[in-house]
C-alpha cells in the first residue's frame, strides 16, 4: 500500500487553479524527486499536503497511511507524520529554538496519547541531532531562524525534521542557498534519516542534490500536472535539455 496516494488533485490559491489533476503514489521508504519550472506549482503542492489555509482543494483525494488528509488541520497532519521543510523558512521572533522543538515534539507525543518527554532527555536528543548537522548550541538558544543566514535556516529545517522523525518529509528546495559543504552536510543528514518506513518528496531545481540523495523516482511538474515520470536518469536529461518540451505550447 502507498504511504501517500494523491489522485486527481486540483487546488486553487487566491481563486486561481494552480494544481490541475495531480496523480502521485509514494510507497514506504521511497524517495521521489519533483522538478519543474518556476511557478509550476511545486510549493503549492507542498502547502496543499501540509494543510496551509488558503490552499483549497477543489477536486481529488489525498490519502496518507490510508487516512484522508484533506479534512485534517495542519497541526494534525504534522502529528500524523507529514513534515514540510519550507522553501523559505520563517523567522519566529522571541521563540527560542529549543523551546520550539520541545513544543512541537510534545505536541506529537500528546497527539499520540503518550507522555511528554523529560526536558533533560530531550536536550540530549536534540544535541545529538544538531551535531550531525554541525549546528551549535548557540543556534538552538536563539529565536528560531531570526538572523540566521539562508543556509542556516535550511539546516534548521533539516534539524527539525531529524527531531520530529516524520513518515513523509517534503523538502521544498532545501538545497537552494546552500554552499557546497552545507549541501553535503544536509544531504548526509537526510540520508541518515532514510529508512524503510520514511518516504521523501524532494522538490529541487538541481540535479546535483540528487547525486547525494538518490531518488527512486523523478517527476516533472509543469502547468499544475505531472507531465512525465521516470528514474533518476530523467533528472540528468532535464539538466541537459531544460523544460522546453513541457512549455505551454508543447503541452
Amino acid at each position, binding site marked *: 500500500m502507498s504511504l501517500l496516494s494523491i489522485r486527481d488533485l486540483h487546488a486553487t490559491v487566491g481563486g486561481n487553479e494552480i494544481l490541475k489533476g495531480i496523480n502521485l503514489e509514494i510507497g514506504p521508504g521511497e524517495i521521489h524527486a519533483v522538478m519543474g519550472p518556476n511557478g509550476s506549482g511545486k510549493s503549492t503542492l507542498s502547502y496543499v499536503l501540509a*494543510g*496551509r*489555509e488558503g490552499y483549497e482543494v477543489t477536486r481529488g483525494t489525498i490519502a496518507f497511511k490510508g487516512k484522508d488528509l484533506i479534512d485534517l488541520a495542519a497541526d494534525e497532519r*504534522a*502529528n500524523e507524520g507529514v513534515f514540510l521543510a519550507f522553501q523559505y523558512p520563517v523567522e*519566529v521572533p*522571541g521563540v527560542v529554538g529549543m523551546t520550539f522543538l520541545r513544543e512541537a515534539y510534545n*505536541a506529537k507525543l500528546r497527539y499520540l496519547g503518550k507522555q511528554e518527554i523529560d526536558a533533560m532527555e530531550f536536550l540530549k536528543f536534540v544535541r545529538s541531532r544538531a551535531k550531525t548537522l554541525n549546528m551549535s548550541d548557540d543556534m538552538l538558544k536563539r529565536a528560531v531562524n531570526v538572523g540566521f543566514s539562508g543556509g542556516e535556516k535550511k539546516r534548521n529545517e533539516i534539524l527539525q525534521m531529524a527531531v*520530529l522523525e516524520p513518515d513523509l518529509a517534503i523538502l521544498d528546495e532545501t538545497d537552494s542557498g546552500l554552499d557546497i559543504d552545507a549541501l553535503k552536510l544536509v544531504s548526509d543528514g537526510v540520508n541518515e534519516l532514510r529508512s524503510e518506513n520514511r518516504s521523501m518528496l524532494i522538490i529541487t531545481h538541481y540535479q546535483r542534490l540528487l547525486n547525494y540523495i538518490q531518488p527512486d523516482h523523478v517527476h516533472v511538474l509543469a502547468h499544475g500536472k505531472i507531465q512525465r515520470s521516470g528514474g533518476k536518469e530523467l533528472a540528468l536529461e532535464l539538466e541537459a535539455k531544460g523544460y522546453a518540451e513541457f512549455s505551454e505550447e508543447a503541452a
Partner: protein
Amino acid sequence: MALQPVAKLPFEGLIADARSHKLGKWHSKLSERALEQYAEIGWPGPKTESWKYTSLNKIASGTFSLAREYSAIVPEDMIMPLTCPRLVLVNGVLNKELSNLEQLIGNLSITSLVDIEDHQKTFFDDLFKSEESKGDLPLTYLNTAILSDAVMLEITEGSKCELPLHIISIGSGNGITFAPRLIVNVGIGAKVDFIESHVGCSDSVYFSNSVTQLYLGDNSEVGHYKLQNDSRDSSHISLTRAVIDDGASYDNFTMSVGAKLSRNEVRAHLKGSGVECCINGAYLGAADQHIDNTTFIEHQAEGSSSREVFKGVLDDTARGVFQGKILVHPEAQKTDGYQMNRAMLLSDKAEIDSKPELEIYADDVRCSHGATVGELEDELIFYLCARGIDRESARRMLIGAYISDAIDEVKNIDIRSSIQSVAENWLKQNLYEK
C-alpha cells in the same frame, strides 16, 4: 443674551465632602489650594493636547461618591504573584490588618497620613506644595483635593532592601472614586524594589485616580513595577512622577491589563547627571478596553541615559495610546535617549495611536525613537502548525513571545517572571479566535 450656566467642575461636589472626612483641618487648607489650581486648569477636554487621544468624558459625566469602606478581601488571583511584604490600601486608605510589614527590616519606614497629628504633617505639606508647582496636572490636584490618606515610604540613606515591597491598591464598591497617594523617598545610595498592584474586588466599578511621587537620592537604585489589573468596568488614571538625582538608577515597568479606561502616565525628571532611567511597559487589551501610556522624560543635566520600550497587543475593539515625549535641556549634553513603541493588532477594529515627541536643545546628544504596528502573520502561525502545534497554542506562543520581549526589560528577575505569568494568564483567558 442669556447667561450660560457656569459649568461645574467634575467632582467638585465631592471635594467639600472629602475635607470633612478623614484627614481633618490640615487637609482642608491643602484641599482648598488644590481645588483652586484644579479649577484654574479645568478638567481635561478634547482640546487638551495631552488628552487628545483619551477622553475623560465618561468619567466626568458619571455619578460617583467618595469611598467610605476601607476593608476588603485581597483578590489574590488578580495581584502580581509574589511572596514578599505587602502594604494594602483599600479605596486609597492604608489597611494595616491586610498588610504584613513584619518582615520589613528597619531601613524602610512607612507613614500613613491618617496616623499622624496635624503638626507632624508639615513634611507632607512641603511635598504637596512642590508637586503643585509642576503645572498642568489637573487630576493630580483633584487627587490632593479629595485625599483620604497618603502613604509615605522612606528608605534611609545607604540601606539596601533585600525584599521587594508589594503595595496593593484595591478598589472595592460601586460608583465610588478614590485617590491613592504614595510618596516614596529614597535616600542617598539606598536600594529598593517595589511593586504596585492595582486591582478591584469582583464586580466593583470605580474611578481610581492614583498618584505616586518618587524622590531618588544620589546613587540610589530603584525598581518600580506596576500591574494595572483593575476591574474590567472601572477607570484607572495614574500619574507617576519621579525626580532623580545624580548617578541614580530608576527602572520603571507597567503592565496594563485591566480597567475599561486606563492611563498610565509616567513623568521622570532627570535632575542629576549620570542617571540611568528606564520607563518601560506592556499592555494587553481586549473587548472595548482603552489603554493609554503617556510618558515624559526630562533630561536636565549632562550625561544621563533614558530608555523606553513599550509593547502592546490589542484585540477586538480595544484601543491603545502611546505618547512619549523626551525633552533635553541645553545643559543636558551627552544625553542618550532611546524610545521604541510597538503594537500588534489582532483585529481589524483594534486601534493604536502613537505620538512620539523629541524636543532637544542640546547639540551633543544621541536620541532615537521608533514605532511599529503589525499583526500576527498567517505565515508565522502556519509555520508553527506545520510542526504539530495547534493554532491556538501557536497564537499564544507567538503573542506571548512578542510581549515577553518588553517584559524582559524588567531588571528584577523574580518580578520579571511574575509579570510574565500575568501575561500568560491573560493570554489563556482572553485569546481565542472569534
